[in-house]
């Protein structure tokens, strides 16, 4: 434009020079696939007949791409792809390590079962109001959050998943949904705004947004500026802790979750419980554990207290409820507390346990909400006092719920046992015996809370005041399509938690690798700056 430039610019030192192979696009595929399918489903808004099948296809592709990505990251170490080929830290990078790939893979499996469940349970009205486009875009946000290597980009993915989740939670517009959405929307908006404030301050302090670059600047030894900025950095770390704890629903910022998670349709609750709070936990890991390693040590006691209170607030809340989904909402909170206990201890074993528990919690909380959906469909109520007799109606559902109850309580032979086992061991090893005690106590109280549901809904012959030995309580029969889809989704998740419980070796070793990658991110940094992809 400004006259006589030579027209040729030497790209050395400006652009990433290595050629991008087709296989490298697998790094962004988990975001691209759901965005494209979301756009497609939006265009097919008037023709809702095939939405369910298209969504299953999309989620299968998503699971395939994240599975391949996990396999590649496990074999080769972290991989990075930078948008526009701008040399890091100037371009927005997608950096995938094992922790991100593992959680993205599990979340895509959850989404796949969710799509199977949805295909046979959503009504035409819900499809016309855009349930599927919201679902797809939420998955794009979740995958993006797990895979991105840029902290402002992480904020953007948070907003993507948040605004899609608003659409899903309010779908139906019942009075209690509107009420729940008000609390969910405002408090989550404040949480992400806190995240943005912290990011703005961090940028002002360090002049970079790339996570690998932030790590280098914060952890560089002998940097003369590091002592001077210790105060601001600690402030920013606390802001991040506050923002992500709010997102993850940790005590005392947990009140939006039990106020809203029981109001939308059951599938939406299941997906939220399985995916959204875990994105908050993942962000805590990525930012607080990896980037602000020094500050996490300072905050470790605070996090431990928060974790303990979150666990106890969760289980006591669950014991005080009489509606099944509200009990489950409190159990989600208690699970978040268990994970934060791992973050507070912060040793390699603890983070391994945290990863195992996060995977377990994603699977089991989704499955429990799906099971609650089938139970509500059978008995036409979610209230504990009004339900009963479900064992006679569906022994398979009773068995599935029993396994899930074992799993959420942390009893063998299910996946819940291993996560808690490793976390308790890590707490005792690091001398935090009281934290181990709280984990075990919350496990005991969870057992009581969840088995109350099983006893009231399945074991007794009918609703409250049905005389003993009476005829089995009559329930609404399920249509064939509903039964097939719902039980396929639920069965897959139950088998998954059993399989992990019986053969934990693969998950334990992957989680240990993920923990190592988070605690010693040398390879992660190398993949971003080492001339990378």
């Amino acid at each position, binding site marked *: 434009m400004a006259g006589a*430039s030579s027209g040729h*610019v030497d790209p050395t030192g400006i652009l990433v020079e290595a050629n991008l192979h087709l296989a490298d696009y697998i790094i962004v595929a988990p975001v691209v696939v759901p965005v494209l399918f979301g756009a497609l489903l939006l265009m097919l808004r008037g023709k809702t007949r095939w939405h369910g099948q298209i969504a299953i296809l999309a989620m299968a592709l998503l699971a395939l791409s994240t599975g391949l990505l996990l396999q590649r990251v496990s074999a080769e170490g972290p991989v990075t792809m930078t948008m526009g080929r701008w040399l890091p830290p100037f371009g927005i990078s997608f950096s995938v390590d094992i922790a991100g790939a593992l959680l993205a893979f599990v979340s895509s499996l959850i989404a796949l079962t969710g799509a199977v469940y949805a295909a046979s349970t959503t009504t035409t009205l819900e499809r016309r109001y855009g349930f599927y486009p919201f679902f797809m875009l939420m998955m794009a946000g979740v995958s993006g959050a797990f895979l991105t290597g840029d902290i402002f980009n992480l904020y953007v993915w948070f907003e993507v998943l948040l605004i899609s989740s*608003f659409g899903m939670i309010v779908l139906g*517009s019942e009075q209690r949904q*509107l*009420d729940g959405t008000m609390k969910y929307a*405002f408090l989550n908006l404040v949480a992400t705004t806190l995240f943005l404030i912290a990011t703005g301050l961090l940028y002002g302090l360090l002049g970079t947004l790339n996570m690998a670059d932030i790590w280098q600047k914060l952890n560089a030894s002998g940097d003369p500026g590091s002592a001077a900025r210790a105060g601001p950095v600690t402030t920013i770390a606390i802001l991040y802790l506050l923002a992500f704890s709010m997102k993850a629903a940790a005590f005392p910022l947990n009140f939006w979750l039990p106020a809203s998670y029981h109001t939308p349709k059951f599938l939406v609750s299941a997906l939220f419980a399985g995916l959204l709070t875990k994105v908050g936990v993942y962000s805590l890991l990525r930012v607080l554990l990896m980037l602000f390693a020094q500050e996490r040590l300072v905050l470790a006691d605070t996090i431990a207290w928060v974790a303990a209170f979150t666990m106890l607030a969760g289980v006591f809340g669950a014991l005080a409820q*009489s509606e099944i989904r509200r009990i489950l909402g409190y159990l989600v909170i208690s699970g978040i507390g268990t994970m934060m206990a791992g973050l507070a201890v912060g040793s390699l074993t603890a983070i391994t346990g945290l990863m195992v528990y996060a995977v377990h919690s994603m699977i089991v909380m989704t499955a429990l909400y799906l099971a609650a959906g089938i139970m509500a469909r059978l008995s036409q109520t979610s209230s504990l*006092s009004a339900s009963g007799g479900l064992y006679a109606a569906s022994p398979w559902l009773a068995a599935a719920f029993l396994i899930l109850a074992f799993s959420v309580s942390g009893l063998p032979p299910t996946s819940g046992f291993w996560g808690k086992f490793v976390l308790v061991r890590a707490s005792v090893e690091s001398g935090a015996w009281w934290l181990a005690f709280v984990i075990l106590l919350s496990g005991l109280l969870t057992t009581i809370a969840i088995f109350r549901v099983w006893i009231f809904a399945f074991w007794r012959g009918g609703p409250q005041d049905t005389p003993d030995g009476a005829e089995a309580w009559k329930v609404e029969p399920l249509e064939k399509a509903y039964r097939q889809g719902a039980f396929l989704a639920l069965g897959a998740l139950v088998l998954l938690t059993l399989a992990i419980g019986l053969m934990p070796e693969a998950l334990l070793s992957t989680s240990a690798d993920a923990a190592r990658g988070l605690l010693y991110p040398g390879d992660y940094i190398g993949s971003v700056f080492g001339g990378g992809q």
Partner: protein
Amino acid sequence: MEVYLAILVGIFFTVSIYLLLSKYVIRVLLGVAVLGNAVNLLIFTAGRLTREVPPIIPAGLQVPVDPTANPLPQALILTAIVISFSFFAFLLVLGYRSFQDLHTDDTDSMRFAEPVDEPAPPRGY
């Protein structure tokens, strides 16, 4: 200059937190709007204020000679404005719809999801 803007940002945050703590939805909404602007100004200030030096590289050079204004904060703010505006639009509609359906904008009486006088959970069979 940064100092004055920092003080202004502080005032914005004070106002928005005061409004967010109100129990009336309409005030909370105003608080959200002010909060969004406070954050935008914060990022703007955090990117340092350099006036009248546009980030343009002279012809024939690879890098700018003098320090230039930082364009990145403006890109960040642009993103944040779009997001906060769309959120505000959604929340405005949600608030209005809630007022129509729940007949209240007082959050204390919004007890539809968590009713006040719930029966206690069953103690036994």
